[in-house]
């Protein structure tokens, strides 16, 4: 699914020079050069703003039941209402929170697990590396979406649980990226120096190697957030969403049944596309900023 294709990006993110642009300021300068990345950033900030301002924008909440059932866009309900009488715009506004939190949760979990499981083989190398690499390969072979659907359908449609399951099945890319970075960085002089002075493994890893090698993982995380939003929408679309937290995907679920009510499909889908696009652009921008080879051709 979506996150699997992050391998596209990871291919090039992998070739990022380790610790290449250590200076944050220059990073931002290059990042800003790419206008699309800037656009993505703006959209993301807008989404965050909407999510925070939800109680102001839609004070009644997303599940308030109005009298107009399944009505097309009007002045009272700019995006129309759903079959139960809920305002679609309120649903989208409050749903921003769900999307963002879910995305952050998944990407965060994936980062934690991935970095940890990737640092170990990268650092120790040898047999450990072989073992871990084999494990990664096996893990990649498990049909991911099938597994997620199975677990969610069978064990419960709780959104936190879903986030955990998705996070726990998407860490492999991060692990691989981390491993590659750690492998390369640990050969560098300053690291070797630190090891020679007797610093513990943990210290070397967390103080010296990782801070310099995390950039590809960060770029990938942005892409994973995009993927997570799509997965949540997909699960809700299949009817596996959490009814206690009205998400954009769940709005699309009822759109399937009421296909003649076009507003149910259009607006939530637009919101998803926009936010996913933003995260993709940001991820793209980050990897661009850190990959000297993708920039400026001769």
């Amino acid at each position, binding site marked *: 699914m979506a996150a699997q294709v992050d391998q596209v990006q990871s291919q090039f993110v992998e070739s990022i020079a380790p610790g290449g642009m250590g200076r944050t300021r220059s990073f931002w300068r290059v990042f800003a050069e790419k206008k699309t990345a800037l656009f993505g950033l703006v959209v993301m900030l807008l989404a965050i703003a909407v999510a925070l301002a939800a109680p102001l924008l839609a004070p009644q909440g997303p599940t308030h039941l109005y009298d107009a059932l399944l009505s097309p866009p009007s002045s009272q309900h700019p995006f129309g209402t759903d*079959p*139960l009488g809920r305002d679609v715009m309120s649903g989208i506004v409050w749903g921003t929170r769900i999307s963002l939190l879910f995305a952050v949760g998944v990407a965060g979990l994936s980062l934690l697990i991935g970095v940890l499981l990737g640092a170990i083989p990268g650092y120790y190398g040898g047999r450990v590396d072989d073992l871990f690499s084999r494990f990664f390969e096996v893990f990649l072979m498990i049909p991911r979406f099938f597994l997620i659907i199975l677990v969610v359908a069978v064990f419960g*449609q709780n959104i936190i649980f879903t986030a955990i399951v998705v996070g726990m099945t998407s860490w492999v890319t991060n692990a691989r990226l981390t491993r590659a970075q750690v492998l390369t960085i640990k050969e560098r002089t300053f690291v070797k120096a630190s090891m020679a002075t007797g610093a513990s493994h943990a210290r070397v890893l967390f103080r010296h190697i990782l801070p310099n090698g995390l950039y590809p993982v960060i770029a990938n995380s942005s892409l994973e957030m995009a993927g997570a939003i799509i997965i949540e929408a997909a699960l809700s679309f299949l*009817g596996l969403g959490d*009814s206690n937290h009205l998400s954009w995907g769940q709005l699309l679920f009822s759109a399937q049944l009421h296909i003649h009510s076009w507003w149910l499909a259009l607006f939530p889908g637009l919101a998803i596309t926009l936010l996913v696009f933003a995260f993709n652009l940001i991820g793209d921008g980050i990897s661009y900023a850190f990959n000297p080879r993708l920039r400026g051709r001769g």
Partner: protein
Amino acid sequence: MKNWLRFIITLAAVGAMVLGIAAMALAHGEPTDNKPEYGGTLIISNRVEMKTLNPNVDVDMESFFVTHAGVYDRLVELDTETGNVFPDLAESWEVSDDAKKLTFKLHPDAKWHDGEAVTSADVEWTFNKILEEQAWQSAVLNIIESIETPDKHTVILNLNEPNAAFLSRLGELNAPVILPKHIYEGTDWTTNEANEKPIGSGPFKFVEWVKGSHVEVVANTEYHWGRPYVDRLILRFIPSQAVDMAACESGEIHYMSQSPPFGELERLSKNSDLKVILEKRVLPIWVAFNLRREPVNDIRVRRAIAMATDEEDIAKRVYFGHCPVAEGAYLSSSWVYNPDALEPTYNPEEAERLLDEAGYPRGADGTRFSLEIVDSITMGFSETNQVMKEQLAKVGIDVTIESIEWGSFTEKVLKKYDCDIALVGGPHGPDPDTFSNFLETGKFRNTMGYSNPRVDELFQLGRSSGDPEKRKQYYQEIQQIVVDELPRYNIVEYTWPCVYRADWHGIPCDPEYDGQLATYDMSHVWWDGATGTELEAASAAAAGTAVWWIVGAAVVIVVAVGAYFLWFRKRAQSKAAS
């Protein structure tokens, strides 16, 4: 010849031609009255493909359109509207006064599709087989102590306890069809070929079952009650509700057995090609409290929740006003309905007062306590759950919704009783004894853990009495108790939207049809566009129209020849003249 004579002859010739053509047109014209004609193919959609075409061997209700009143017969059938028993394989019957013995007389002309006659031995064999294997329908038949077959067309069922409802049970959905003994005897009935190529005694004969696509059956011209009007039935498998609806709108499907979403009904009703009927079926939707748990084990809390539920609102939003609100403990259409035993009405202020009194005041954030409501998604349960969440929030109850599909639902609710409230639905009839499945102590569907000895006793009495007046009394008392103790309360009486093409008639939900029809009975349908069956006597019908064709052709030929002669002679004359 004089000119004016020629003119008249030409006019007459043209007139004859026109008449001839008109005659031919009339022969093929549409029948102008609503009298049923033979012919046509009815295409029905079914959501799930059946596992087997033998409804007795395995639990599988998906084949009923082609097995109940299709390929097979049952002993008796129930009219879907009134719940009355009417004959099917059995022509007539007698129930003894003590309600322990039923005597059935089978229709003497009943035949199996392979030509063998249907006899009482088939009924005996079928019932005994089910009991022997304890197949799923044995729940209905277990009450039979012995079966006698004094002659080829008489079957006597002796029950081991009096049960006035038993006759009706034989027509319910989970009652058996009659299988041919000579096909099944001595074989393993789970693997017998007839499970996929059935040989029955019903109004339709089996044609083919294309797995993944459809089942086709054709009219049985030798059926003992007379052949169906329709020529063929095709049951197509269409899992998606949306696709089903679209197919019915485009005419690909004539009758969709799945209901469209309630929100679409208005749009569909405006379509003049479709008929949208709301079928009353015996199915309420209700809230079941798990009496094992706090705080719902407190009657005040239960009454409060019932009062906080705005059933009108739910009927409006979830069912778009198409399902009536349920006011009593039983279905308002039932003959045992007790109009005085009413559930608490919508009264949020009183609900708040009761909750305070029960010792659950509002906390700092306005919440009194949390509840988990579990539902199984279909039939509007999930939406009702969502609306109830909003309604209960108003009186300070925080609801967590769990909408899970049937597999998980059975585990969680029916086995582990792991919920505070369950939103459920289930058939409550037509015989009022069905109610006992949900309320009697220890019954499988009694998820509430309700146990009231008086109620159990009343159900027993109702079952064993043959006197309708007495039975009515018992069931009415049950309703009063239920409404007082409130282990559950009904929300709406689910009505089934029935959608079909307007040029078909006699579908069980058709309000204009007067006769008696069972729920899955498609043997009385007919089509407006039918102009005669294509099964047999097709030659006769063709002969009728053929005559007109010949007449018309003759007229045309005569006129043509005549016209040619006239013209030829005129030319000859003018040639001669020049």
